[in-house]
């Protein structure tokens, strides 16, 4: 019986594609706020939902959201997890904690890191506040907030 030829197992053909991303009008409003150390929310006039970050229009009612208004930034941990595994492209050494934070006055949640605390002490309902970067590093980017941390002496929500 003849044997089949050995199949080619690999060859290299790397694809590279460059893109321009378009943030959109809604996202741009929020991102510009971050550059000025502010968290800009917007309200739906129909369902009263407050979005943070806010798109241009309510994804449930499909109507344009209100003019942006500022929220303080402090909020409550709604849920969280501790990342223990390494992966390609990781920028922080594990273990670290990522959380869903409901900022006071918003009906949606913001995702960010929680630091400056023993990871085992973080719990759902814990009150947290943003730690902004230095003035010279402020940008139209989520990285304008370095992370969230527990409010000193803050009680749970």
């Amino acid at each position, binding site marked *: 019986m003849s044997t089949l030829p050995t199949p080619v197992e690999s060859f290299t*053909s790397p694809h590279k*594609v*460059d893109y*321009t991303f378009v943030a959109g009008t*809604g*996202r741009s409003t929020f991102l510009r706020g971050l550059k000025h150390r502010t968290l800009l929310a917007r309200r739906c006039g129909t369902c009263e939902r407050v979005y943070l970050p806010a*798109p241009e229009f309510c*994804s*449930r009612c*499909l109507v344009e959201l209100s003019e942006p208004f500022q929220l303080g930034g402090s909020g409550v941990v709604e849920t969280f997890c501790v990342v223990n595994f390494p992966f390609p492209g990781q920028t922080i050494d594990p273990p670290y904690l990522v959380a869903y934070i409901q900022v006071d006055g918003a009906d949606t949640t913001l995702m960010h890191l929680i630091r400056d605390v023993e990871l085992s002490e973080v719990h759902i309902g814990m009150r947290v506040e943003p730690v902004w970067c230095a003035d010279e590093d402020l940008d139209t980017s989520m990285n304008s907030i370095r992370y969230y941390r527990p409010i000193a002496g803050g009680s749970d929500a």
Partner: protein
Amino acid sequence: MRDVAVVAFAQSPGTAADRQDDMAEILLPVMREALASAGIDRSEVDFWASGSHDFHEGRTFAYIESLDAVGAWPPISESHVEMDAAWAAYEAWSWLQLGEGEIAVVYGVGRGSLATDLDQVTNTQLDPYFLAPLRPHQDAIAAIQAQALIAAGALDEKQMAEVVARARAGAVGNPAAQVSGEVTVDELLAAPYLASPLREHDRGPIGDAAAVMVLAAGDTARRLAQRPAWVRGADHRMDSHYPGTRDLTRTDTVGIAADKAARQAGFAARDVDIAELHTGYSYQEPLLAGALELSGAINPGGGPLVARPTTATGLIRIGDAARHILTGRADRTLAHATNGPALQQNMICLLEGDR
């Protein structure tokens, strides 16, 4: 066959690069216009189908963003094709044919401007072993087909220039067009080659646009439109993945799809008043017109040679073919959509208005 018609169609103005709107923002005004034109509320829509491509957007599941212009809460019945939205229209038409509902909305978002070089994207759809490693430009593959047609005596460069001159003249006053104007054949033939025998004007300008179509069945269609554009027949056929296995001077998939659609419709491509062809390149018009034995007008508003918003382009062909009937300009029209290099996959729709 169930009576299924296009009852409304809208599209955004032609633009080379929309740097203001995200996917939902470019879609929402068009969605509003189409639903208002049909006089319906989104709660009346039974099924949603859309077409766009993650590789054009540079993100996985990119189209999910467009659902913010549809309203996915409370949950809806929807589907998406990772290709030209003409195929989403085909899915919605089939869905209505099966009697699953009464009203379907189809939309396409094409944003060709996001990839810095669209050829980096189109390479990824090619045969990964023999063709993609060579990185052929889409214009080069098209030029190979055009050259083969010239060698076969089926085409010459003057014919191609005539197609472009007519398209640009027809586009004057068309808000969807990215280029328009009176230009002579001699002026066009004096331009340098891009990939011989093709010149820059022989390919439709890539751009950004959204398009929305409302389909409805039977009496619902009669209620929503004064003169519904009945989709009497539709079929699509695909050729092999590797162009080297094809005779590029033949378009068998077009002929088969047209025959199947004609059998459903009871009339043929040669019987239509206006044909809207997905001609990304000028040379494709004589080729398709010959295969379909067309005798009426072709792409009167300029077609893809004046605006090519990638994955919305084919859906816009069906929309334009429907508009000719909705507005009473024609009684029978044809729409053609294509996908893949060198007319690899082709769809034919035959539409008709009540007389």
